[in-house]
């Protein structure tokens, strides 16, 4: 299995067109291996990004440097996936 330990999903409530452009620039940084769950489009929609653990400091540094506020939506993705899997196993046993 692919493991997501330490990966975070961050949410950015975009406040300006300039921030949209800065986030689009971030989207092109392939080495960060970011997974945009919601893409930067406008100030009307948030941007959600799954950030691998290895890229967290770079991404958060980038956001701080450009004064782009964000919140951590999912603190540790793997924890949530473990819960999801455990719940599925319980359900499967109940059905049997």
């Amino acid at each position: 299995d692919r493991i997501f330990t330490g990966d975070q999903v961050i949410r950015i409530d975009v406040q300006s067109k300039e921030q949209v452009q800065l986030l689009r620039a971030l989207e092109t940084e392939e080495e960060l291996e970011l997974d945009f769950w919601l893409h930067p489009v406008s100030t009307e929609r948030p941007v959600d990004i799954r950030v691998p653990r290895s890229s967290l400091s770079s991404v958060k540094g980038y956001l701080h440097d450009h004064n782009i506020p964000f919140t951590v939506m999912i603190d540790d993705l793997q924890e949530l996936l473990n819960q999801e899997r455990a719940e599925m196993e319980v359900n499967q046993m109940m059905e049997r």
Partner: protein
Amino acid sequence: NTKSFNFGAYHRLETIYSWMDTLVAQHSNLVTKLEIGRSYENRPMYVLKFSTGGNKRPAIWIDTGIHSREWVSQATGVWTANKIATDYGRDASLTSLLNTMDIYMLILANPDGYVHTHTHDRMWRKTRSQIPGSVCRGVDPNRNWDAGFGGPGASSSPCSESYHGPSAHSEVEVKNVVNLIKSHGNFKAFISVHAYSQLLMYPYGYSCWNVPHQPELDSVGRAAVKKLTSLYGTQYKVGSICNIIYPASGGSIDWSYDTGIKYSFAFELRDTGRYGFILPANQIIPTASETWLALKHIMEYVRDDPY
């Protein structure tokens, strides 16, 4: 027994396929299971056909989970199929609809991807096809349709999550649907269900120009969303793909609209704002229940406003 099936849980592909057989057995006067082809990894692709008789009657298409990681979509599809089967004969409006039209549901539109999300990578979105000359696998099956193929909002890089593929309909999962829709020839609505971010969209994604039926589609969409919102207050946005998200070429509902299926819509189901694609299972039934109100509105409109 479908009564012992837990609709408020996520299930593996084998469980869903097995449940389909149970549904068919329990509602044999209404539901049949059709194999429309095989996936890249040779898994069968099953469509549930809800029909009270006749051949190639006006029909409504619903697919769920073309992006495999959007699990609440497939789960909503399962709940919805059961709802249609159990409400037929009880709900007068649905019964009248099924007395004149058929409903086709493809609950696992990307079976290989779905299995991959259970076995290897929960965040997998694409198909699993191998791309010659690339170490990356998979095509975004919602960028692979022959509708502005290769245009804006789709990537030519096989490693991208929105890779459009080597050619339009290169993905067998897409081609299987195209073949069915074309050979049938009488689909009046095409509804594709995704998650998340709470949107109800109509064509186009490949262009920001309004489609000729934009006012009507917008009006139908807004009325559908009003009903959806009435259940739990979930807020949706309505508009064309291009105008409320971003340009995205090669999408399924653009293809269906350009093929002549006027009532083409795409849903993005609810987002609690905390979980994204890992929506907790206790949200499945609320999501499916509210979505049903919108789906039903669209289907009733299709029934009452033929073209």
